[in-house]
C-alpha cells in the first residue's frame, strides 16, 4: 500500500495454536494484512513449529514467541511494549487482530478506505457484541456485559494512541489468568470504558436488517453480514460453536449456510476452513456444524455426465461369518460396480467352496481368503484386509451381522438393515457414494447413523460407553494428536459396516497387528480392545486430515426424521403435560434438576423380577472378573434362553 508518513499502519497479529501450527488460512490472512500495512508484529502465545516461523518470517521480521500466558490481551500488551509507546504514536492506525477470524473475503482496502473517511474517530472495530444483562464471567467491573467491539479486530487511531488514558489502561492492566478475566477486563470492558470517557468509536459492519438484530451478528447471521453488510471476515468459531447456542437462536443452519456461501459465492478457498477445523476441532462439532449427514439418492445418479480426473480404485472387503446369511451378503455385494474387486474373509475353511460358488455370479474379481477366528470383523479388516487395502483408493467394509443376545431377533435385524442399507442399498446408491468421495476430497469415511430401536435407544448419547479410556490409549499408541472428549460422541460405524478412503486410515493399517492383540472368544460385550478399535477409526481419519460423516439413502432419511420427531415429540408431550414448556435447553435443565432431587431408575418403573435376577446380575457383573462373568452369563442364556425384553402386545 502506498502510504505517506502520516498514513502508516501497524498490525499486531496475535496467534495461538495448541500445537504451534499455522494453517493455510493464516498465510492467506497475513498476506492480506501485509498489503495494507507498513509493519506487522506477530505474537504467538506458546511455542511454534519451524514451518510456522518460516511462514511468519515471510511477512514480518518481528515475531514474538512468548509463554502461553495472559491470553490475547497479554499478547497485545507485550507487542505494544515491544514497539514502545513512543513508536506507536508514529502510526496513523494500530490494528489488533487475532487468529480466531478467517478471511478476508473482500480486499481489505475497501474497509480501510471507507473507514479512512471517518476522520474524527479514536478507535473502531468490525462487529459488536450486544449487551448482556448479567455477567456470566463474573469479571467485568461493570457487573454486566456492556455492548462492545469484538476484540478479534480492533483499530486504534493516532490520537487515541497518544492519549494518556490509553497508556494508563495498559499500565494498570492486572495479570490475566483466565479466559473470563480476559473477556471481563479487556474485550467486554474496553469499549464502554473509553467510550464513557468521550473517545469516539464506530463499527464497520452495522447490522442493517432489523430481523437479525442479535447479540453476535457475525456468528448468528454470518452470510447476511458478509453479503449485505460487506463484513470481510467470519469467525472460525462458526464451525465449532456449541449446538445449544445455535439452537436457542437459530435452527442450526448458519454454519452450513456460511460454508455453502463461501464455496459458491466467494473466492475464499473453503478447504482452508476444513483443513484447520479438521486438525483442531472435535469431530462431533464438525459433524453438527457442517451438517455432515449425506442423504444420497437411491434412484438417480449424482454425477450424470461428469467425469473425474482419476478413476478411483474400489474394493469391497467382506467378513463373512454366517453361512446362512450368504445370499443376503451376496445381495448387498452385488451393489458395488463391476470394476470393484471383492475380498471375502472367512474363518471357516469348509465354507469356502459354497462362498466361491455363490459369488461366481458376480462379474467382479472375487478373492476368498481364510482368516483366523480371533477378533471377529475388527481383526478381519485390520489383519485380513491390510495387505490389499493399499492397492485401492476407496474401500467398503461389510460384515454379516446377527444379534443373538437380544430377543426378539427383529431388533438386531433392523440394526443390520440400517448398517447394510446405508452402505450398499443398490447400485445407484453405491455409485453416488463413490461420487461423494470424488467430489469431497477431504471426506475420509462414511458411516451409518447409530441404531435407536428398542434397547439401542440409549446409543445416542452413550456412543463411548465404557470405551473412552481404551480408545484414547489406542489413539496415543497410534500417535494421533486429535481432539477427543468423553462429552462429545465419536462418529463411529455402529455395526462395522462403512466406507473409507484408504489414505485416511493408512496409520491404522501400517501398524503391524497380530491376532493376539485381539481378545479371544468369548468376547466381552463391551469395553474390549476391539471396541476401542471400532471407535478409533474416525480419529485416525481425522488426524490424517480427513473428516468422517454419516450417510444414508433418501428413504432412510425420511424414516429417521420421522422417528426422531416422534421421540422428541413424545418427550415434549410428557414434559408439557406437567407444565414444563420452553426450549430443548430449558427442558434439559429442568430434567437435570429433577433427577438430582429424585432418584427414578428403571427399578422404580418396572417392578423387580420375581427372583431378583436382574439385581443378582448387576451385583455379579460388578463384583466378578469379566472372565468369569461372561461364561456365567452365557450359561444362564443357554439354560434360560436369550434375554427376553418385555414385550407389549397389540393386535
Amino acid at each position, binding site marked *: 500500500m502506498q502510504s505517506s508518513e502520516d498514513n502508516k499502519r501497524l498490525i499486531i497479529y496475535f496467534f495461538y495454536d495448541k500445537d504451534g501450527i499455522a494453517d493455510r488460512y493464516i498465510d492467506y490472512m497475513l498476506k492480506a494484512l501485509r498489503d495494507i500495512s507498513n509493519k506487522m508484529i506477530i505474537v504467538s502465545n506458546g511455542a511454534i513449529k519451524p514451518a510456522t516461523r518460516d511462514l511468519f518470517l515471510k511477512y514480518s521480521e518481528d515475531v514474538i514467541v512468548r509463554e502461553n500466558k495472559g491470553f490475547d490481551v497479554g499478547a497485545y500488551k507485550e507487542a505494544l511494549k515491544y514497539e514502545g509507546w513512543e513508536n506507536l504514536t508514529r502510526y496513523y492506525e494500530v490494528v489488533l487482530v487475532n487468529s480466531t477470524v478467517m478471511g478476508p473475503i473482500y480486499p481489505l482496502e475497501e474497509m480501510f478506505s471507507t473507514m479512512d473517511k471517518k476522520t474524527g474517530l479514536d478507535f473502531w472495530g468490525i462487529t459488536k457484541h450486544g449487551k448482556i444483562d448479567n455477567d456470566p464471567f463474573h469479571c467485568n467491573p461493570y457487573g454486566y456485559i456492556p455492548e462492545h467491539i469484538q476484540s478479534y479486530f480492533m483499530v486504534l487511531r493516532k490520537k487515541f494512541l497518544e492519549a494518556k488514558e490509553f497508556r494508563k489502561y495498559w499500565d494498570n492492566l492486572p495479570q490475566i489468568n483466565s479466559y473470563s478475566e480476559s473477556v471481563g477486563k479487556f474485550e467486554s470492558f474496553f469499549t464502554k470504558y473509553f467510550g464513557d470517557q468521550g473517545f469516539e468509536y464506530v463499527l464497520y459492519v452495522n447490522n442493517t436488517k432489523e430481523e437479525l438484530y442479535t447479540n453476535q451478528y457475525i456468528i448468528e447471521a454470518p452470510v447476511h453480514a458478509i453479503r449485505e453488510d460487506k463484513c470481510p471476515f467470519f469467525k472460525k468459531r462458526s464451525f465449532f460453536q456449541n449446538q445449544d447456542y445455535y439452537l436457542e437462536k437459530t435452527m442450526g443452519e448458519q454454519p452450513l449456510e456460511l460454508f455453502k456461501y463461501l464455496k459458491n459465492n466467494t473466492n475464499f478457498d473453503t478447504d482452508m476452513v476444513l483443513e484447520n477445523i479438521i486438525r483442531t476441532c472435535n469431530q462431533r462439532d464438525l459433524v453438527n456444524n457442517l*451438517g455432515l449427514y449425506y442423504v444420497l439418492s437411491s434412484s438417480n445418479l449424482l454425477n450424470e455426465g461428469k467425469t473425474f480426473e482419476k478413476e478411483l480404485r474400489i474394493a469391497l472387503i467382506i467378513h463373512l461369518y454366517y453361512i446362512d446369511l450368504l445370499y443376503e451378503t451376496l445381495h448387498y455385494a452385488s451393489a458395488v460396480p463391476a470394476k470393484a474387486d471383492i475380498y471375502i474373509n472367512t474363518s471357516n475353511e469348509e465354507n469356502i467352496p459354497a462362498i466361491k460358488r455363490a459369488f461366481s455370479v458376480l462379474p467382479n474379481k472375487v478373492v476368498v481368503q481364510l482368516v483366523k477366528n480371533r477378533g471377529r470383523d475388527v481383526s478381519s479388516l485390520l489383519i485380513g484386509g491390510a495387505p490389499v487395502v493399499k492397492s485401492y483408493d476407496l474401500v467398503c467394509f461389510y460384515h454379516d451381522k446377527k444379534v443373538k443376545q437380544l430377543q426378539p431377533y427383529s431388533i438386531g435385524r433392523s440394526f443390520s438393515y440400517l448398517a447394510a442399507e446405508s452402505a450398499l442399498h443398490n447400485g445407484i446408491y453405491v455409485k453416488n457414494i463413490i461420487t461423494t468421495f470424488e467430489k469431497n476430497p477431504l471426506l475420509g469415511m462414511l458411516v451409518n447413523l447409530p441404531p435407536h430401536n428398542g434397547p439401542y435407544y440409549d446409543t445416542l448419547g452413550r456412543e463411548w460407553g465404557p470405551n473412552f479410556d481404551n480408545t484414547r490409549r489406542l489413539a496415543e499408541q497410534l500417535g494421533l494428536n486429535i481432539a477427543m472428549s468423553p462429552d462429545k460422541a465419536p462418529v463411529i460405524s455402529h455395526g462395522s459396516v462403512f466406507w473409507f478412503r484408504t489414505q485416511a486410515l493408512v496409520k491404522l493399517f501400517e501398524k503391524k497387528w497380530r491376532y493376539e492383540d485381539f481378545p479371544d472368544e468369548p468376547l466381552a460385550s463391551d469395553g474390549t480392545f476391539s471396541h476401542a478399535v471400532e471407535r478409533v477409526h474416525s480419529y485416525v481419519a481425522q488426524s490424517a486430515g480427513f473428516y468422517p460423516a454419516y450417510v444414508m439413502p433418501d428413504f432412510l432419511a425420511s424414516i429417521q426424521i420421522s422417528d426422531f420427531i416422534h421421540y422428541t415429540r413424545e418427550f415434549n408431550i410428557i414434559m408439557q403435560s*406437567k407444565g414444563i414448556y420452553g426450549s430443548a435447553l430449558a427442558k434439559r435443565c429442568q430434567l437435570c434438576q429433577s433427577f438430582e432431587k429424585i432418584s427414578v431408575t428403571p427399578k422404580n418403573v418396572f417392578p423387580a423380577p420375581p427372583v431378583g435376577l436382574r439385581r443378582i446380575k448387576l451385583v455379579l457383573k460388578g463384583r466378578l472378573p469379566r472372565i468369569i462373568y461372561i461364561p456365567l452369563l452365557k450359561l444362564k442364556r443357554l439354560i434360560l434362553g436369550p434375554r427376553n425384553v418385555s414385550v407389549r402386545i397389540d393386535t
Partner: protein
Amino acid sequence: MSLDVKCSEKKRLVIYSFFDKKGIVDRYVGAMLQGLFTVSDRIVIVSNGAIPPQSRSLFKKYTDDIIVRENKGFDIWGYKTAIDTLGWSVLQDYYEVVLMNDTLMGPVYPFEEMFNAMNKRPELDFWGISVHTGISHDFTHCNPYGSLPEHIQSFFMVYRNKFLKSNELKDYWDNLPQLSTYEEAIGKYETFFTKHFADMGFRWDIYIKTPYDGNFSDYYLLKAPRRAIEKDLCPVFKRRSFFHDQDDFLFQTMGEQSLELFNYLRDNTDYDTDMILENLIRTCHQSDFVRTLGLYYVLPEEYLIPAPKTLSLKIALVIHLYYIDLIDETLHCAAAMPLDADIYVNTPHKQSAEKIKESFNILPNNVFVRVIPNRGRDVSSFAVGTADIAKKYDLICFYHDKKGTQTKPYTIGSSFSYLLNKSSLASSQYVQNVIQTFAQNKYLGLLANIPPHNGPYFPTLGCEWGPNFENTRQLHKKLRLKAPISAEKPPICPMGTVFWFRTEAMKKLFDYKWEYEDFPLEPNGIDGTLLHAFERIYSYVVQDAGFYPAYVMPSSLAKIQLVDFTYYIREFNKIFTKHGAQNFFYVEKQILDNLFNSPDCPITMRNALKFTLKRKLSPTVYERLVKIKRAIFH
C-alpha cells in the same frame, strides 16, 4: 395331480367379518373377497353395523349371504352370529370353515397356494396364517391362564371338518362370553382359543412360521411384513401396518417395516397399493400414515430427480406480500418458479402496488399484482384471494412473507422463515422436483414444511394444536369434512402457511365462498383465533378430498434436521445415562413421567404458575396477561 382333484372336492366356507364406521366398502375389501371367491364355495359376510346400499351391492357380487348386525362383541360375535345363523349342521358339511376379518389386506399371492400347502396337512384340526408368540404378563387381566400364551392370530383362522364336528368347539361357541371391551376380546378369545383347544389334544399349526423358531418377533406379520411376503410367501398383510403404535414399532424395528412393505408391494408385486392409500386416507388419522409411511419427502435442490412423466401441470405461485421491506427476499424466492408458472401477488398496501409491479417485472413470468383488503392476513389472502384463480391451475404454491418479531432475538423468527423459504422454494431445481413429486404421486395433495423447533418453538413438537383444537374442529364441521380429527393426534399442517397443494384437493375450502368480512379485523390475537384454525385445517380439507398431506424439505435442510434431532435426543439421553436411567425409549418415557409426577419434583414456580393460568383462564384473558408480562419484562 390326484391331490388337486381332491382339493376341489373339498368344500370351503368363508365367514368374513366386516366393520367400517360408515359402512363403506373400500376397494381393498373387494380385492380380498375376489381372492377368497376363487377358493371357496360359499362366502358369508357379517357386517357389524349398518351398510349403505352401494356397499351391499358390492358384497352382492360375491355372495347373497349378508348378515347385518349391531356393532357389538367385535368380529368375534360377528362370527358367532354367522355360526348360529347357519347352524352347526350346515357348517359340518364343509371340509374347512374360514373365520376372517377385514383387518387383512391382500391377497398378494393367489390363496390357492396357501390352501394347497395346508391341504397337505390333513392331520390338523385348525390352523391359521400366523401366530403371536405370547407374552408373560397378562395386560388384559382377563385371560384365564393369567398370561397371554402363544396363539394363532384371530384375523384368519380355519376350522377343519373334524374340528367342526367336535362337541368342544360347539360348546365353546355356544357358551361364548359377552365381550364388551377390547381387552376382553383379546383375553377371553384371541389369546385363549389356541391353547384351550391345543391342551385338549386338538392339532393346530400355522402357514407362516416366525423365523428363527419364533424368536424373530412376537408379531412377525406386523414387525417384518416385507420379509413375510418376500421370503415366506405370506399372501396377506395387516392394515394396522400403517397406523400401529410407533413406540411398539420402534421397540423392535428402526421404523422401516411399513415403508419397506409398501415399497415392496408397489415395486415387486401385482398388488395395487392405491387400494391401501384410498383406505388409509378415508379412515386414518393423517399423522399415523405420515409416520408409518415416512411421508417426509427429501428432495434434491441442486439437480433434477428422474422424470418418467412429462409435466403438463398448470402451476401458479400466490404470494401474500405484506412487508414491503422484504420484497427482495420474496422476489428471490419467487424466482425459483418455472418460467411457465403464473405469479399472483396479493397485497393489502394499495400505495405499494406499483412498486411491487416494478420489482416483479424482472421475472419472465406473468405477474398479477392485486390489492386486497387488509383483513384476515394471509388466511383471507388464501381463502378469498386465491379461490378465484385456483381452478385455472393444477398446482399452487402459496407463499407469504414472514417476520418473526414476536420473539427476541429476531434470528429465531428469521430461522423460521428460512425453514419456510427452503421447504417451499429452495431453488428452481427443487421446485421442479416438488412438481415432479406431485406428478408421480397422484394421491399427494399437500406438501408442508416440518414444524419449527429452535429455541422457543421447541414446544411446538407435541403441542401442534395449542389452543386451536376446538376452533379447528368447528371449522372442520363448518366445511363438512369427514377426515378423522383428534386432539391426541397432530395435524400435518403447514405451520407458517407456506405450502404447495393440488387445487383439486382444496376444492371444498374454495367452494365455501369465503368473504373478507368473514375474517376478524385487526388487531388479531396471537393464538387461538379463526386464522389459527385455518392454518391447521388445510391438511384435513386435502384428506377429505381423498388426498394425503406430507412433509417436504430439501436435502440440505434434512441434514440440519438430522443434526438437530440427534442432538436433542443425545443430550436428553446423556442426562438419563448420567443418572443410571438410560433405557429403551418407552421406558425412558415412563421414567420421565414418574419423575415429574413426584411431589419432590422441583418444577419452577414460574412454570407451575404459567401452566395453571393457561389451563384455567380463557385464551383471550391469558393472552392479554402474556402481553402485559411482555410489555413489562420484554
